[in-house]
């Protein structure tokens, strides 16, 4: 009887390390791109959610509620199976980036909105009184101040974003989880494959999570 973590399985994994390296690289790439997309969407929709215009608030609500109240897996499946019907062909990794980016964009929008609302009302009034428009006031006065407040929760979002790129495995997405899965379903060496994958995610997420905790402590100390 051979154990799931038998030495020769680890040796096989070590021999095939480029497979895991490729997956690790793709996961990092997808994470970075999805994070950029999520931040962009999060800032735009977070600002809309704090805007004085009803229509902007309404659009913010629809986006946030729809995305937050449906599973990420369904959203990604929808993109994967639905987009080709609309004549939109995208590489699998891009689908992952869009799916995960849009998903976390909704959470970041809420973080940004809360951050904006934590800034004293007098700040935007001072900006308005000087002739700033709403968007100028946001850009030069409110968001730079809100950035300090939202940095810790934003970093936490980055952590779950990295982990959530693993949904790509479900749509043959070429990420770390996908490579590990397909490598081990060929040879049935699941044990070492999954442990290695977990360690690699940990290596990405733990420093980020620690950074979030540090930022939280620093913000707490500043108050």
């Amino acid at each position, binding site marked *: 009887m051979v154990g799931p973590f038998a030495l020769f399985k680890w040796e096989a994994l070590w021999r095939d390390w480029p497979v895991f390296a490729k997956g690790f690289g793709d996961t990092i790439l997808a994470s970075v791109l999805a994070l950029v997309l999520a931040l962009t969407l999060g800032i735009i929709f977070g600002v809309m959610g704090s805007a004085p215009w009803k229509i902007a608030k309404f659009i913010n609500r629809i986006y946030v509620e729809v995305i937050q109240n449906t599973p990420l897996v369904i959203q990604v499946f929808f993109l994967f199976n639905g987009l080709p019907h609309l004549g939109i062909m995208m590489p699998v990794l891009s689908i992952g980036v869009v799916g995960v980016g849009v998903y976390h964009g909704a959470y970041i929008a809420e973080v940004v909105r809360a951050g904006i609302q934590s800034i*004293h009302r*007098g*700040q935007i*009034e*001072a*900006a*308005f*009184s*000087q*002739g*700033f*428009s709403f968007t*100028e006031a946001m850009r*030069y*006065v409110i968001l*730079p*101040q809100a950035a300090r407040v939202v940095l810790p929760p934003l970093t936490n979002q980055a952590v779950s974003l990295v982990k959530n790129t693993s949904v790509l495995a479900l749509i043959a997405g070429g990420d770390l989880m996908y490579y590990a899965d397909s490598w081990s379903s060929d040879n049935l060496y699941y044990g070492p494959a999954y442990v290695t994958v977990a360690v690699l995610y940990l290596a990405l997420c733990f420093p980020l999570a620690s950074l979030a905790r540090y930022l939280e402590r620093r913000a707490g100390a500043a108050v």
Partner: protein
Amino acid sequence: MESEGESERQKSGPHREGDSLIEMQGVNKHFGLLHVLRDIDLSVGAKEKLVVIGPSGSGKSTLIRCMNLLERPSSGKVIINGVEITAPKAPVAKVRQSMAMVFQQFNLYPHKTVLENLTLAPILIKGVAKAEADENGMAYLERVGLQNKAHAYPSQLSGGQQQRVAIARALNMRPEIMLFDEPTSALDPEMIQEVLDVMVDLAHGGITMVVVTHEMGFARQVADRVIFMDEGEILEAGPPEHFFSNPSHERTKLFLSRILR
């Protein structure tokens, strides 16, 4: 400094003493069921120094905030320098550039240095070159006695110093009108005078000022006209001599007797 501001203003507008710079016509403001401003008609002339007094909650802040549309009137018109800013699609932001506001809580930008507080809007909104904005900013800081704090952050200053910076920030927009909403009410008593001194100095220049305050000494010293507000109405208006020596309304007398104790 003052004469320079003077010529600025003469260039920018055709006003003579007595022209109306701020005009409020039939202005009402409701907050839900609360009727905070009741049919306000008010006209402030170019270069006039108008002081607004009245008990807390009488609508003074709402009145002055309707002048630059931080509060939008529920009905009525506000006309600034001939532009009806309450009209749909009025160039509100543009008009606001020419009328600066000083707040009770200072509202300096905490993430910017003192000098950056002064230059942010001139550079971004009015398109003034950075070097020029810096130079003018330093001149105004000197005028309020804070040139040595140019590179400090607001949180490093006392309340009185912050309010003087806020006044310098307002001045660096080269406004025609300055609105003050209880600029000394949040200050420790020993810091009130330094701010009032700056405001008196300003008042001697040609700028139009609307000042909500409880500082009766200031009102006497600089006001052309004092108005007394109560429950959303202008109950009484007149030059300070008349106003303080023989007010006509019972409620004005009552208010003055409390505040002048």
